[in-house]
């Protein structure tokens, strides 16, 4: 299996402090990898590091064989990585369709295939394509955010807590969409608070603690691990 994402011994953080003290992970093509861990473990920070949003002081990140360590976010986008932030991840005063258009800002030529693909994944959005994104429910906004990111047809999709604040029904729906997206050949790395549900649905998982790797394995193995359970799954 070829690895789309390879992160090796990453050290870095915001300002002078190093939140990440040596994090390593890989993600294969068409694989869903979930990062879980207690609050302050550096989950979101690890994801932002991939996207070039913080200072990396050590280690390396390669995407599909290209070393992108220290690149600017806009070049990382061009390298085929899209990032969906946890909050304010849509253009609230633009329509759903315009949000998708902004996602494809760097692309030119005929985009109808890309729109079709996104609207097939998210039939709800097709119905509401002329609605302002700010007027949608939390779950639908998350779909717009993911749809916007998918417009560039990325190799690697980074999702920061896509189910935060959503009802269990929407959480299931978002997970199902992640599987559908994976089945089109996209690698997904996501950070999750809902550790149990996320480990149950992901292909593989990483448990971070204090900015370093603690456990890794398939979702089922991690769920069965007593240490992982004691740490934060609540027994």
């Amino acid at each position: 299996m070829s690895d789309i994402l390879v992160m090796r011994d990453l050290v870095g953080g915001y300002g002078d402090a190093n939140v990440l003290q040596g994090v390593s992970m890989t993600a294969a093509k068409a694989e869903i990898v979930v990062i879980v861990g207690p609050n302050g473990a550096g989950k979101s920070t690890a994801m932002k590091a991939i996207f070039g949003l913080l200072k990396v002081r050590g280690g390396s990140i390669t995407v599909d064989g290209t070393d992108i360590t220290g690149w600017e976010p806009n070049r990382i986008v061009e390298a085929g990585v899209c990032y969906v932030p946890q909050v304010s991840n849509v253009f609230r005063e633009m329509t759903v369709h315009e949000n998708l258009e902004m996602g494809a800002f760097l692309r030119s030529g005929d985009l109808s295939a890309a729109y079709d693909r996104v609207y097939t994944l998210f039939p709800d959005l097709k119905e509401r394509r002329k609605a302002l994104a700010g007027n949608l429910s939390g779950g639908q906004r998350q779909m717009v955010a993911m749809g916007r990111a998918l417009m560039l047809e990325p190799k690697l999709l980074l999702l920061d807590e896509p189910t935060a604040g959503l009802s269990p029904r929407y959480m299931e729906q978002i997970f199902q969409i992640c599987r559908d997206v994976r089945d089109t050949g996209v690698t997904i790395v996501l950070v999750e608070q809902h550790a149990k549900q996320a480990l149950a649905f992901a292909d593989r998982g990483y448990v971070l603690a204090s900015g370093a790797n603690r456990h890794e394995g398939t979702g089922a193995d991690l769920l069965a691990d007593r240490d992982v359970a004691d740490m934060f799954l609540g027994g």
Partner: protein
Amino acid sequence: MGALEIINFYLVPGIVIGSIYALGAVGITLVFAILRYAHLAHGDLATLGAFLALGAVTLGGVSPYVALPVAMVLTAAAAVMIDKAFYAYLRERPKIVTVMASLGVALMVRAVVQVVWGVDSETYTRGIVRPDVWFGIRIRDRELITILAMIGLVLALHVFLQQSKWGKAMRAMSDNPDLALLSGVDNKKVVMLTWIIVGGLCAAAGVFLGLNYELKAMMGWTMLLPMFAAAILGGVGRVEGAVLGGLIVGIAEEMSTLFLPTEYKAATAFAILLLMLLVRPTGLLKGKVL
């Protein structure tokens, strides 16, 4: 006093000056939305535009309407250069620094106008123009053209913002700058485009002010407060709100002379601004809260 007199002596002049405020307020609201600071050189940029048009009228012997697009292009170029020379260096600093810098730019631009064209009042054309009468409503050609030009320019801007790729990029930058950058929008291009549009609109406001009244070095500066009042009244970041705000401020100023001495006209804009900030800080159409 009859209805016709109120229309002829208060409403029509109010709509005309309101249209001029609207042109300025749209620019102010765009700078607020995309660059996120109050641009105090806005009025003096309008003065510059008015005098550049005067230059085209006196040197080229053309009518002010032909001089208008020339002045718009030149003022847009001036705005882009001012941004590159002054504001670009301050972009990462707290916004209040740029606000103060724009006050300095205002004084510099006005000084340039005074050095080149002097401090006396000027006009584009000499002589008195008699108004046409339509069903008892008296309106001059230049007044009608001011209103129509404002509507035309704002409509063109609206179509640009709604339909074109870079217009959408401007709206995206105003809506969620971080996400716009994540989507690959080039911030520098958006900033330049904003100044081109803002400079052009400033020049239009200045030229129409000069056409309906007279050209003075202080003309733009005195218009600054009503333009800001209009932008905030309409809702910061709302182009259609700025037009509405401009018309309301203009009409309110003229109507106020029915009850108050004319010297208090300028206080009307102040009163509207204060009242709006107290009662509804988001403006009439829901805008950003500053």
